[in-house]
């Protein structure tokens, strides 16, 4: 059994409400931080913990906090990114729905560390029922003296507001989020300046994912060093994985980043294996934007080593043979799934979600979607595969925000690893409408060249 820090108490009856949460030890970190630590000491603990952003990029949180500009007389903000719209990712929702006070507690401690007196939770519009849960938790926290003016007589004041998005994936990108929060069109900003210098209303701002902020609670309670003892190398602490697709037990799992991918998929503690007795074909380990891997490269790295569920191991081999931890949206595909259709579905998503500001992303995503639709519907040409490869290359790295890359990578990875399946579609236009390519050789052991 791996250690659980975030979801340990998530299923205690009534934990959603203050009394139970407090009885179970909630808000201890606020007492500890506000009464016995300076803001810098809190930041120091977060640095020591090695906590990395859980929103996708995995940037060290403590370091991000220490970049925050602190000019005199200018307010600072903490903005919690609860926009969670990456296909395959639903961990923040789980956390906010079941144990909302953990997030509120994390916000108070983090805001204290950053010197923010106002904090916003920007939540995905489709999570329509969650703002009520959060607002109730905020009200309870306030009624019990954890929010408002002069908290516990320490002189520190904080207000938390919940803001709903209007249904745009792009508003999860931190600068688009800030624009939207300011009431503007959710276009990503051109960086620099970075939010740490000019963020919300041009003031220094830290944007962090829900899970990142929640993880600050155990870090302050137990100390950064304790937290860093969990996990492997630079992948410290626990990570929430939202597992979905063709597995027996889809859901949100907290892992301590020491288990192998194979164990995560096949053990009964986690995904419980592939559903309906099917075989594993492919997997996207970290949300729709990260590269898809065929079964053989998923379970073992190109060097033939076991692949583990942590940042370094998942990205072992770079994009050629590896993937990424991303946001932890673990999507499993069995032998009956069609990679071409799957890639088309993702391309359609990115086409629909591009903000349209920069030409490569605006035009390229639409073009890729159309070509993929053709291939999927038996209307593709061989040259289309190379054309797709070329278009994704023209988008990647050339756009304002990473959505362009996020649209390019899944297409690139699908062609890189599943080219035969694309070619089969082109060569068998009638047959590909009747049946899928199947598992083919995608689970075969990979030949590892022996080097002297």
């Amino acid at each position, binding site marked *: 059994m791996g250690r659980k820090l975030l979801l340990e108490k998530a299923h205690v009856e009534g934990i959603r409400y203050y009394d139970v949460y407090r009885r179970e030890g909630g808000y201890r970190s606020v007492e500890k931080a506000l009464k016995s630590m300076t803001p810098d000491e809190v930041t120091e603990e977060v640095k020591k913990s090695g906590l990395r952003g859980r929103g996708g990029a995995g940037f060290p949180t403590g370091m991000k906090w220490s970049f925050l500009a602190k000019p005199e007389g200018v307010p600072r903000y903490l903005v919690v990114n609860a926009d969670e719209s990456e296909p395959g990712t639903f961990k923040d929702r789980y956390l906010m729905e079941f144990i909302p006070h953990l997030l509120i507690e994390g916000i108070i401690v983090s805001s204290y560390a950053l010197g923010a007196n106002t904090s916003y939770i920007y939540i995905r519009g489709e999570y329509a029922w969650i703002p009520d849960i959060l607002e109730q938790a905020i009200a309870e926290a306030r009624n019990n003296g954890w929010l408002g003016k002069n908290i516990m007589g320490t002189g520190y004041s904080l207000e938390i507001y919940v803001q709903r998005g209007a249904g745009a994936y792009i508003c999860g990108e931190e600068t688009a989020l800030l624009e939207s929060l300011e009431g503007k069109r959710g276009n990503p900003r051109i960086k620099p300046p970075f939010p740490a210098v000019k963020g919300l209303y041009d003031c220094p701002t830290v944007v962090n994912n829900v899970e990142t902020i929640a993880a600050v609670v155990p870090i302050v309670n137990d100390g950064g060093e304790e937290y860093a003892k969990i996990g492997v190398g630079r992948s410290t602490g626990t990570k929430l994985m939202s597992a979905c697709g063709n597995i027996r037990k889809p859901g949100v799992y907290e892992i301590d980043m020491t288990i192998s991918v194979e164990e995560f998929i096949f053990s009964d503690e986690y995904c419980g294996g592939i559903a309906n007795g099917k075989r594993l074909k492919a997997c996207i380990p970290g949300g729709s934007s990260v590269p898809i891997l065929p079964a053989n490269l998923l379970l073992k790295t190109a060097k033939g080593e076991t692949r583990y569920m942590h940042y370094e191991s998942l990205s072992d081999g770079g994009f050629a043979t590896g993937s990424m931890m991303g946001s932890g949206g673990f999507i499993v595909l069995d032998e009956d799934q069609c990679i071409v259709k799957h890639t088309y579905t993702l391309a359609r998503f990115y086409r629909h979600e591009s903000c349209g500001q920069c*030409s490569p992303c*605006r035009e390229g*995503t*639409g*073009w890729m979607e159309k070509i993929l639709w053709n291939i999927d519907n038996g209307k593709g040409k061989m040259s289309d595969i190379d054309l797709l490869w070329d278009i994704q290359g023209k988008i990647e790295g*050339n756009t304002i925000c990473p959505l362009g890359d996020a649209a390019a990578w899944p297409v690139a990875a699908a062609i890189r690893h599943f080219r035969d399946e694309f070619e089969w579609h082109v060569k068998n236009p009638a047959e590909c409408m009747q049946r899928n390519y199947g598992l083919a050789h995608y689970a075969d052991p990979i030949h590892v060249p022996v080097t002297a």
Partner: protein
Amino acid sequence: MSDQLLKVTIDNITVEVPAGTTILQAARQIGGDVTPPAMCFYTPLKGSGGKCRTCLVEVSKGSEKDPRPMPKLVASCRTTVMDGMEVKSVTSQRVLDARAGVVELLLINHPLDCPVCDQAGECHLQDLSYEHGKAGTRYEFQRRTFKKHDLGEYIQLHMTRCILCYRCVFTADQVSGKRVHGVLDRGDHAEIATYIEKNLNNEFIGNVIDVCPVGALTDKTFRFKNRVWFTKPLYAHRDCSKCCGEVTLWMRGDEVFRVTARKDEWGEIKTSAKTGDTGWICNDCRFHNKNASDWQIEGLADISRHSVIGQGKYKGLKKPAETIEKVLDGRQPRLLMDIHSVSEVNKPEIELSTIQGPATSAVFKKKP
């Protein structure tokens, strides 16, 4: 620090620029091929740039202090120069590839209706595709279309031609005082529109026509009246209480076909000599003063970059050498056919070679 000049080398040419200068501005100082094309950046508009990605360049050395190259290509219009920075524009294959890619992507949904577009001849997308694009397209799908929006009596919107540079949005925000149009929707279905059908008619809104790099926003009062290359650009001014009153008149014969602000060689509106600010002009000057007598004409406009319009009309023009003798091996050209003998068109037989200036309809209206 601020008055110290920074050294930047672009394609092996070094210039010194004040701090805060962008790579694009430094490259414009050098001029020529080195200068990246810029479809969305517009110097007078705050916040513009960064969107079209045509101006991408490679920074092969970050600065003297931190010589590391930048991993990605950067938008030169939004990246400021550091001392000792080294930049590659046309000397980088990566840049050329990316640029050609952007041009191709900008064109896949463009209607290519230049023959019926009023912007043809002064369109930056035409220049861009000619200079940086490839012949032919690999796009085999239907091009995007939009529901038509009417923007009122002055401005014609052709959304299919729009490249979403946002210049007109910034202009409406920063120049016209009140913005009633903007970008609706997102991605490849984003469009310029007013949310509820509204007229764009506040006093300075005409400037959106001048900043639009393509034929998406054109002057309704000039619509289909003439091709720009048949008209002659002249600088002129009038006393105007609302704006600087310094304009370019686009004339043919004595007729003023169109009035625009004065633009520099990068297509940007020049600084007014009178006010020292950007020479935005008001709707009155642009749309309601179409008689030559309304204006004090100063002389030929001195732009030379856009050669299609430039032919025969700009100062400092180099005329191509006559080649007809060479082609004919020294023989004199001779008349093959007299048009009068086969056509009714030129009645009442005006001797074309004796006409001074362009042949306008007035010439032919002469009673026999």
